């Protein structure tokens, strides 16, 4: 009855209280952090280990080694034959995989909840027990080269983004692609892989995330048994990366590729990321991206370029706020036939200038706020997504408290804060503008 009264009055308090997944956390004695996300709707569990090492932690000249090692982690270990981990997960009806980005490398299995112990026994085994052989290298390196062929070399858009990212970062490793530059990837060897493994794979550099039909008590017992016995590695160093100097010159680039059918303009600005205890600017930038380019029909760029002047087929603004170091804020405009890239870029800049002068439509702002609140409710349908949030945040400089405060911070952002963040981020000197175009001879 009480709940019904709240609902009639339109109070959102009970819902917000409900819309937080049940999360617990604790630390093992060897420094491994553990996060447990409970969802008892289905007898399924996601078991993940996230390492605080990614492509941006590679030594110069060794690009791609973090991702290459991720592939090699499925080879022979102290207790498992090559490929046995995946075979065993499959034999138990589960699925497994791994992923690498600039800031983290993560391994996960999705399996029936009563298989959790088996997953932990295998994942903990390969944390320090990998027994690589020289024979593993050449074939798996060929696989990774084909992966680069498939994801990057075959896609003009991916090649363009790679060049653009390299232009964005003058001194930070975010300018180097995660998969590695081809010339360096081809030379990665056994010693590189072993050295990277020994330096970074240890409990005191890892986070265990278990999500699904489990209790923290169960997880604690198993985690102590399997991960808690692995000694901390004193060789693990804090992540000291070269940082960006002040950007003093706007950069422009044009990438021609005969495979491009639809040219477009892409602009990115260096932008602050979510920082622990200081997420307000990042939250304001999330709103800014939504206001400028979140919805084709109601955003600033969509309204101006797609509806009013009809110069663009598609527009967008994006902001990836979760990163260890400086991230980017981006704008995209895809012209309709007959409109040049220069014209659509000018129209984009004019729309942004007008927005900076006139400010935020309050109805738009309220709609976005509502959608942010709703997205927290919808997110609870996917426990794996919640697990990913924690893993990504904790390997990118944030704390559990930061993750849990984030929805509230998003609800408290004001239009004024968004405009302050916009003035901060729209600094031409810290921007890269790229044109993706068809073959050069078509240029007129």
């Amino acid at each position, binding site marked *: 009855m009480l709940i019904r009264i709240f609902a009639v009055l*339109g109070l959102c308090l009970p*819902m917000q209280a409900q819309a937080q997944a049940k999360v617990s956390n604790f630390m093992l004695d060897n420094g491994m952090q553990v996060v447990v996300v409970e969802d008892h*709707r*289905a*007898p*399924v569990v996601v078991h993940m280990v996230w390492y605080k090492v990614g492509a941006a932690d590679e030594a110069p000249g060794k690009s791609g080694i973090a991702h290459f090692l991720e592939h090699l982690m499925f080879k022979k270990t102290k*207790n498992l034959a090559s*490929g046995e981990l*995946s*075979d065993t997960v*499959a*034999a*138990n*009806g*589960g*699925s497994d995989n791994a992923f690498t980005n600039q800031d983290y490398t993560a391994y996960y299995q*999705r399996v*029936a909840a009563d*298989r959790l112990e*088996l997953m932990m*026994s*295998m994942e903990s*085994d390969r944390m320090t027990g990998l027994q690589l052989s020289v024979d593993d290298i*050449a*074939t798996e*390196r*060929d*696989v*990774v*080269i*084909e992966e680069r*062929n*498939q994801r990057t*070399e*075959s896609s003009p858009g991916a090649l363009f983004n790679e060049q653009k990212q390299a232009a964005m970062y003058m001194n930070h490793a975010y300018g180097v692609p995660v998969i590695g530059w081809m010339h360096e990837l081809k030379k990665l060897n056994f010693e590189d892989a072993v050295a990277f493994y020994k330096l970074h794979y240890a409990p005191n550099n890892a986070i265990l995330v278990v999500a*699904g039909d489990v209790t923290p008590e169960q997880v604690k017992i198993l985690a102590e048994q399997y991960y808690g016995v692995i000694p901390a590695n004193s060789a693990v160093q804090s992540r000291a990366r070269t940082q960006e100097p002040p950007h003093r010159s706007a950069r422009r680039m044009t990438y021609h590729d005969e*495979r*491009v*059918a*639809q040219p477009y303009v892409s602009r990115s600005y260096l932008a602050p990321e979510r920082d622990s205890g200081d997420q307000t600017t990042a939250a304001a930038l999330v709103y800014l991206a939504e206001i400028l380019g979140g*919805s084709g*029909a*109601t955003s600033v760029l969509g309204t101006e370029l*797609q*509806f009013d002047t009809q110069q663009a087929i*598609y527009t967008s603004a994006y902001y990836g706020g979760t990163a260890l170091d400086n991230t980017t804020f981006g704008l995209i405009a*895809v012209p*309709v036939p007959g409109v040049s890239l220069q014209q659509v870029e000018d129209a984009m800049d004019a729309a942004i200038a007008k927005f900076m002068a006139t400010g935020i439509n309050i*109805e738009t702002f309220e*709609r*976005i706020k*509502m*959608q942010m*609140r*709703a997205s927290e*409710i*919808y997110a609870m*349908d*996917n*426990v794996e997504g919640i697990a990913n949030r924690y893993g990504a945040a904790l390997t990118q400089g944030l704390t559990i408290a930061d993750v849990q405060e984030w929805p509230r911070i998003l609800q408290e952002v004001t239009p004024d804060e968004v405009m302050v963040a916009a003035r901060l981020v729209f600094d031409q000197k810290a921007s890269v503008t790229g044109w993706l175009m068809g073959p050069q001879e078509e240029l007129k």
Partner: protein
Amino acid sequence: MIRILSTFVILWAGAAPAEVQIKTPTSPGGIAAWVVEEPSIPFTALEIMFSGGAALDPRDKRGAAYLMTGLLEEGSGDMDAQAFAAAQEALAASFGFDVYDDTVTISVRFLTENRAESLALLKTVLTQPRFDPEAIERVRTQVLSILASDAQDPDSVAGATWSQLAFGQHAYGTPREGTAASVAALTREDIIAAHQRLFTRDTLSVSAVGDISAAELGPMLDDLLGQLPAGEGLKTAAVDFATEGGLTVVDMPTPQSVALFGHVGIDRDHPDFFAAFVLNTILGGRGVESRLSAEVREKRGLTYGVSTFLVGKEEANMLMGQVASANDRIGEAIAVIRDEWTKMARDGVTQAELNDAQTYLTGAYPLRFDGNAKIANILVGMQRQGLSTDYINTRNDKINAVTLGEINRVAAELLQPEALHFIVVGQPKGLNEE
């Protein structure tokens, strides 16, 4: 380690997802739906599927269903495209409209607090779409841009080439997006006709999972769908499908060739379907554990990914696969695939492979049911296929019932090395068209 492992494997029996309690109410107005009441999160996932899709486009109107679907969020009732978007965003509801060759689907998500308003908004799309001329031109330009990009994309070109080769003049033979010429010629009347043709009550399947009761859902469905036309029982035209073995090369300037390959498959209702399903799992359906992946990727490093899959269209069944390798290595990858195809047809699979695949498939099945949206999606697909709610509890038995003798008989019948055709897009070295 090993001992722990075998204990687990023996204990594992592939339980059914007993938690999924499906109710099958029929609304006062006669609309049948499947419902799972799951009130712990205050939202509902609603899946609506209409049998009959882009393949019902008249021959000279290819792309009509696709363009119509793209226009559904571009204005309805007294709202133009921007007013509609603003209304939807204010409710934080989402409507995903998709069209395939044989179906149109609507994936809906709404908060409990906005349930009535969200469904009222969706109803305007189904009963009062505007198809404003300005919106038509805007979306048409988007579709033409997509077609131009697809023409330069190796995967899209491989798919289009395969469809053309396999189905020729049938609607399956051209992309559902249409061609530049057909899309340019579509009129507002063609789009209205597609809307009236596809959104009919006779082809409807509905499922809802989340914070809603079966009793609440019925009247809501009557209001949402009750005014749709009864429908004329339209069906995708029949087609004769067969492949001749061989190789078709499409020249494209790319460092890595993409290959799509296949031949005739098997109908979902065929008594041998489950044997074929398990067979495909062993051949190439099971990620890195499959035979093709072991031979092409793990042993030889020829690709990042190779896979096979059974395709069940309304009027055609295919067993297909895909692989991508550098231009100077694709020839070897294809030779290995042909070889494995021949071996499996001739020698079949081993008892160990069969057991592993059965354990994997039966164990993986209950893991699919872990979200409202995922469950709603599965349930609507089951309805369309004419399965009963009990299928969830018996499906694993059907997998486990496949015997070695049966699967190897099916391997010899289904796998046809001589009919296996490869489409290669790229600049492959050392490969000649046959």
